[in-house]
């Protein structure tokens, strides 16, 4: 925070503290101890900085004995009853890794000894300054405590519904939105500008509701519709479009910092997270009541009437950036929690509660205890990736009989596939033996010792660490040291006995966790895993889930290490961790690792071996994929999704974290609501028998969706207004506190918010109210008098023009060429990424895939969002940051955008497609081609002068620049995509 505090030096009273009276002690302090404190401590704990501002780090003042006794955020610095236990000594000793002072390095032992002696003496102080305290004056104290002023702040006080004011102009009196807006304008003596043209209106409305341009036919139909409800019919039509959900879901995704990877070192995929994106689209399209929408995202799994969708909704709490290998696991768990608290409080309540994590909020009446009471609603959430699992299966209705049938069919299918593949492999090997006997001889993998990174029990059993008790969550990571965690050691294989094998280390329980390590000097290109498992095994390499096998086998399997396995390899020490589960019968596990082996599948799959025909090869590949699917289908019915789970019905206690450090636990708090709204404790019903969660999140969402909640309805209504009118009634949609900007039309905001609740939290009802207003239909033109009086258009005397968003630009270009694929939903697609950008990734190709052209032409909301790698076309045009809630996007105008529009491959591809389209629709008629291009891009026909200029430009390209006609037309198309008229909505 900025320096809010002023200093006022307290009067320096020569008071003798009783403990400081021993003159010998005082002299010792003055000569031996005070100089040490002055040199090492005073500066940050009571001193002034070079600007004369006081520094009181950690709330601790060390200028006086009094300061020591009062102490700071971690408590008193001196323990008077047992001086040897004083915090001061602990911190100076560097024994506590979390709290070491002074920060530059431990004091020399002889200085420490002096201080210890002095503390033992009772910390006597020089009498002249024993009571000296820097007085901190906080001018914002008035807004950081609960008082009449804070309770009366517009967004802390209850919503107040007043009747719409009466206005004279009949055109402005029908819609309450207009009445509120016009009354303010009348008050200031300002006239609104007139209504926008119908073409401008429909273009505005189409983009606002669907993110797509209207066709010229749609505009013409609207222009010729003379019925009095012509406009409201358009509003209804577009609100009913499925593309409405796609457009408005994106607004929501900005707030919840939606991305499909975790960020950090590996930036791994968040599996199935697209189901959450589809859920949001569906919710908007269904006009799901907002209170339900909110509740599902926070507590959809705890709802009595939960559905698959309501559980998918909780994926919202899994969207944050997440470090799978943090240096400080405990702190990072709470960082993730904090990320969610910020999204929930800023996103739903426009409350910057995150500021109160380390200390009381410095601009709002939110004490630190409020933050942790809020955090405790989420305390039971299972950490991300516990045991490597990030997803859950959500059961969908299905009878047991149907399931049995399905399983039998899968078994039969697998058997058939395996038989075919075996024949194919044999044939391929036979061919290879004829064409390349040397290569063929290597296929079986003779197992020379140096080729084995880990030998299996058949040759030389590897020693593994193992445990039969469920280990700590980080058991599979590189940093976990099984030897220090009390694991036992034993030789492979583990289990009892299985066909052809006998265990060396007996394991006859349900589960076993195994860990071993191997060294690598260089990363091999391929690896062969020799695996014998009975039954399910999850295999982790360096903390990454790399392979999962289920059921049992009756012989060693040779499995080529999958790409995930190879990607997780690192030079130096590698940690292999395995979790094996058995359900019935015997058990057995063993694993070997062989470098650079050629497996029969390679012989089939690698074209350079020329061992099978191409159709056979492709068929083999398909069968392999099908086997994976079968495995998936067999595991359990239902759909897999990233959702919230809790550790059980009783969450761990929630401590206040002193200065936000998870290692400095303060008092325990329980779920409760902010003090500014009464601070009552949450009523969380006791979890039912067999419950897997605490029910706390449901209690929170019940409170947040109370019809009289002072924030929830206001916040959402303000967001809807913001997206229709270019800025919110309060321009800071995520912050309604004292640091935010108050609403320009508070009465209107409250009226809309109460209406929202009264209409059953229907978002479409609010859209209708706003869109059917005159205020929305105003032109974006200016007018000198109003512009002088209200240049920022605070009062909405005109409509705020806006630039298209990154997604709208791309989707519109694809729509103009006719290439756009409007298929909805499903896994995200990869849109082409320039080589230059792929090269910035640490992995070759950045783990960026390729989607077939028709898929790559899907709407932008379906494009893959990877935290470390984003398409430049999106970032250039101000896509939301993926790591922070984004309530209002930037709208920058910078030359990189112009470079992209003039020189990028994407724009030139689209220009080519547009030119080809208009040429094929109007062969030989250049004028018609130009007209059509205008129509497709800016939804109107060019006027005479524009037509002449366009034809002249194309002529110049042909004649002066010697371009072929089709190329000349493409250059014209490049220019059309750069029209300001295309970029900006009136």
């Amino acid at each position, binding site marked *: 925070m900025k320096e809010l505090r002023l200093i006022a030096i307290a009067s320096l009273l020569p008071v003798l503290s009783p403990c400081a009276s021993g003159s010998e002690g005082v002299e010792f302090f003055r000569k031996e101890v005070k100089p040490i404190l002055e040199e090492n401590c005073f500066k940050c704990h009571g001193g002034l900085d070079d600007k004369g501002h006081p520094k009181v780090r950690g709330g601790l003042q060390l200028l006086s004995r009094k300061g020591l006794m009062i102490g700071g955020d971690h408590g008193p610095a001196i323990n008077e009853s047992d001086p040897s236990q004083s915090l001061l000594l602990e911190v100076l000793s560097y024994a506590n890794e979390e709290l070491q002072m002074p920060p530059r390095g431990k004091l020399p032992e002889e200085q420490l000894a002096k201080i210890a002696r002095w503390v033992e003496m009772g910390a006597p102080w020089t009498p002249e300054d024993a009571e000296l305290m820097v007085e901190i004056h906080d001018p914002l104290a008035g807004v950081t405590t609960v008082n009449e002023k804070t309770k009366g702040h517009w967004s802390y006080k209850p919503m107040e519904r007043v009747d719409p004011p009466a206005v004279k102009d009949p055109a402005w009196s029908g819609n309450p939105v207009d009445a509120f807006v016009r009354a303010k304008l009348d008050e200031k003596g300002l006239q609104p500008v007139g209504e926008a043209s119908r073409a401008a209106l429909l273009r505005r409305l189409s983009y606002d509701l669907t993110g797509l341009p209207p066709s010229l036919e749609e505009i013409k139909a609207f222009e010729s519709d003379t019925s009095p409800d012509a406009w409201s019919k358009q509003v209804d039509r577009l609100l009913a479009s499925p593309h409405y959900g796609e457009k408005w879901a994106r607004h929501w995704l900005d707030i919840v910092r939606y991305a499909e990877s975790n960020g950090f070192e590996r930036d791994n995929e968040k599996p199935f997270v697209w189901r959450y994106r589809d859920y949001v689209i569906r919710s908007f399209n269904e006009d799901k009541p907002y209170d339900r929408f909110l509740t599902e995202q926070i507590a959809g799994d705890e709802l009595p009437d939960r559905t698959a969708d309501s559980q998918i909704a909780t994926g919202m709490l899994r969207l944050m950036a997440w*470090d799978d290998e943090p240096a400080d696991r405990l702190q990072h768990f709470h960082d993730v929690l904090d990320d969610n608290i910020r999204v929930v409080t800023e996103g739903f309540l426009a409350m910057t509660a995150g500021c109160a994590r380390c200390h009381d909020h410095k601009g709002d009446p939110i004490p630190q205890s409020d933050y942790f009471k809020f955090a405790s609603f989420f305390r039971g959430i299972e950490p991300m990736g516990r045991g490597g699992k990030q997803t859950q299966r959500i059961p969908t209705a299905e009878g047991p009989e149907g399931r049995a049938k399905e399983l039998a069919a899968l078994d039969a299918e697998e058997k058939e596939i395996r038989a075919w593949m075996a024949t194919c492999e044999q044939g391929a090997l036979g061919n290879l033996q004829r064409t390349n006997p040397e290569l063929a001889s290597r296929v079986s993998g003779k197992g020379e010792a140096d080729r084995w990174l880990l030998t299996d029990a058949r040759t030389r059993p590897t020693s593994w660490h193992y445990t039969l008790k469920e280990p700590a969550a980080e058991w599979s990571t*590189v940093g976990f040291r099984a030897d220090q965690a009390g694991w036992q050691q034993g030789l492979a294989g583990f289990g009892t006995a299985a066909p052809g094998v006998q265990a060396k280390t007996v394991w006859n329980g349900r589960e076993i966790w195994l860990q071993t390590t191997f*060294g690598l000097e260089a990363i091999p290109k391929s690896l062969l895993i020799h695996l014998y498992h009975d039954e399910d095994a999850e295999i982790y390499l360096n903390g990454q889930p790399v392979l999962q096998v289920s059921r049992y086998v009756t012989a060693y399997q040779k499995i080529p290490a999958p790409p995930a396995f190879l990607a997780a390899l690192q030079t*130096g020490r590698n940690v292999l961790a395995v979790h094996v589960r058995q359900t019935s019968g015997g058990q057995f596990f063993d694993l070997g690792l062989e470098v650079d082996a050629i497996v029969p599948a390679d012989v089939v799959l690698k074209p350079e071996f020329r061992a099978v025909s191409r159709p056979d090869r492709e068929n083999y590949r398909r069968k392999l994929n099908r086997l994976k699917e079968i495995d998936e289908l067999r595991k359990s019915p239902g759909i897999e999704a990233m959702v919230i789970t809790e550790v059980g019905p009783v969450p761990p206690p929630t401590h206040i974290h002193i200065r936000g450090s998870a290692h400095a636990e303060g008092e325990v708090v329980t779920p409760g609501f902010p003090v500014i709204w009464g601070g009552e404790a949450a009523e969380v019903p006791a979890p039912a028998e067999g419950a897997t969660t605490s029910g706390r999140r449901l209690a929170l969402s019940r409170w947040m969706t109370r019809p009289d909640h002072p924030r929830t309805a206001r916040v959402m209504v303000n967001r809807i207004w913001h997206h229709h009118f270019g800025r919110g009634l309060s321009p800071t949609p995520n912050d309604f506190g004292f640091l935010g900007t108050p609403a320009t039309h508070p009465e209107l905001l409250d009226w809309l918010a109460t209406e929202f609740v009264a209409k059953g939290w229907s978002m479409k009802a609010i859209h209708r109210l706003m869109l059917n207003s005159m205020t929305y239909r105003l032109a974006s033109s200016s007018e000198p008098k109003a512009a002088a009086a209200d240049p920022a258009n605070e009062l909405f005397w005109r409509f705020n023009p806006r630039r298209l968003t990154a997604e709208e630009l791309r989707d519109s270009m694809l729509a103009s060429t006719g290439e756009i694929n409007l298929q909805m939903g499903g896994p995200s697609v990869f849109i082409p990424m320039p080589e230059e950008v792929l090269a910035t*990734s*640490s992995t070759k190709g950045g783990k960026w895939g390729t989607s077939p052209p028709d898929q790559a032409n899907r709407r932008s909301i379906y494009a893959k969002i990877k935290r470390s790698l984003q398409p430049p076309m999106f970032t250039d045009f101000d896509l939301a940051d993926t790591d*922070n809630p984004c309530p209002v996007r930037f709208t920058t*105008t910078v030359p990189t955008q112009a470079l992209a529009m003039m020189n990028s491959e994407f724009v030139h591809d689209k220009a080519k497609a547009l030119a080809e389209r208009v040429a094929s629709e109007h062969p030989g008629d250049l004028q018609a081609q130009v007209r059509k291009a205008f129509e497709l891009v800016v939804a109107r026909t060019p006027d005479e002068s524009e037509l002449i200029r366009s034809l002249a430009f194309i002529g110049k390209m042909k004649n002066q*620049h010697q371009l072929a006609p089709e190329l000349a037309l493409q250059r014209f198309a490049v220019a059309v995509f750069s029209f*300001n008229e295309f970029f900006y909505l009136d």
Partner: protein
Amino acid sequence: MIARPPFRNFCGRVHRREFLHQIGGGFTSLALAGMLSRDGAFAAGVSAANPLAPKQPQIPAKAKSVIFLFMYGGPSHVDTFDYKPKMYALDGKTVPIKTFGRGGKKNEGRVVGPKWKFKQYGQSGKWVSELFPNVAGVVDDLAFIHSMTADSPIHGSAMLMMNSGSLLSGKPSLGSWLNYGLGSLNENLPGYVVMLDKTGGPISGAKNWSSGFMPASYQGVVFRSKGSPILNLENRPGMDRLQQRSLLDFLGDINEGHLKGREHNSDLAARIASYELAYRMQANAPEAIDVDNEPQHIKDLYGMDGGRTDDFARKCILARRLVERGTRFIQVYSGGAHNDDNWDAHGDLVKNHEFHAGNTDKPIAGLIKDLKQRGLLDETLVIWGGEFGRQPTAEYAEGTGRDHNSAGFTMWMAGGGIKGGTSFGETDEYGGAAVKDRVQVKNLHATVLQQMGLDPNHLSYFYGGLDHKLVGVEGADPIQELIA
């Protein structure tokens, strides 16, 4: 990048003060002053139109530009600049020592003695290993920090920390802060340039040069030292500059027509202007990056000779050329991708460090000498170092590989008002942890900001209810002992 009246929307950064400024500046123009700092430290002298327009420094500036030579992966300090003579004899012996690296926390380890000999160089008598014979020749210009510490010994979070001051993703990087605080001196070139290793970017890719919650205008622009330096800077094949001029003229005509009646929307004129600016950049940037036409003696000085040093030499020369043209912050990566493609020597330490030091030693020394002979070193702050250092002990039972070490490592700075020929801070006798004058990453950042004329404790950006600072909310002091 460079901008005309730039943006009117803020990602949550709009607050009352900014809005008041906006009213004064008309609806579409941004009042940057408000977002710079809520205590108004910046209120004067800030253009309301252009986020990258040059701004007055907050305090007297010693340097105009920064070149950060980022040794990604973590170079071993005890094998390069942190001389530990006692370690040689201990090679292979197991000693009690607390370490925390990729492989977790350990209480003892097998010492890997330094694999290279050290000699003293220069007036300062600085001990430098055989890995850096050329850098050793300029030690009197360098100020070493031997007591660097970082909060994480894991690449992902440690990279973010060195670049953005935070272990968590989403914060603006050092170069973004500099451009935000100072603006660019050359509107034809980016103010923040990143040059990557030819093997690829570092882990987390673009997050390392992200502008976080600031506008994307402040993010790093990736420059390539061969071919087209910036994405989309070159015209598509078949489209020449004359055609482009005709296209811009036609576009200008149409846009002028559209502007009629919309003059109040200054974004429209700004967009028209941005095309002309981009067109000029296309003309000017190739000259700026033309390292091939440098005189032979300069190429020789850096080792731009087609051999192993060629690639890094080109980047160092390019960095100097950008400094001459006013780019504020240039980051050059040595090492990319994973494993031994960077300094991350878990396996064969000798092979790894010989490779990376051998590729960079001569170019780095050349850069220092060249900046000095042009009188540019005084106003250019050069930083060398990685996200952390390496352990004095072996990582596993056999071999010379060292694990990561964030408890103590070495970085050095040169130029830009830094006192050359000095060494600051110490690690313990093994080089395992900093014990004297410990320096945190935020102190390093504070030093950079101060030398560039920004007050580290008063350069802030309002987002999410908080005045964010690069050095953290509590602030941090620059390392005064290193200041000339």
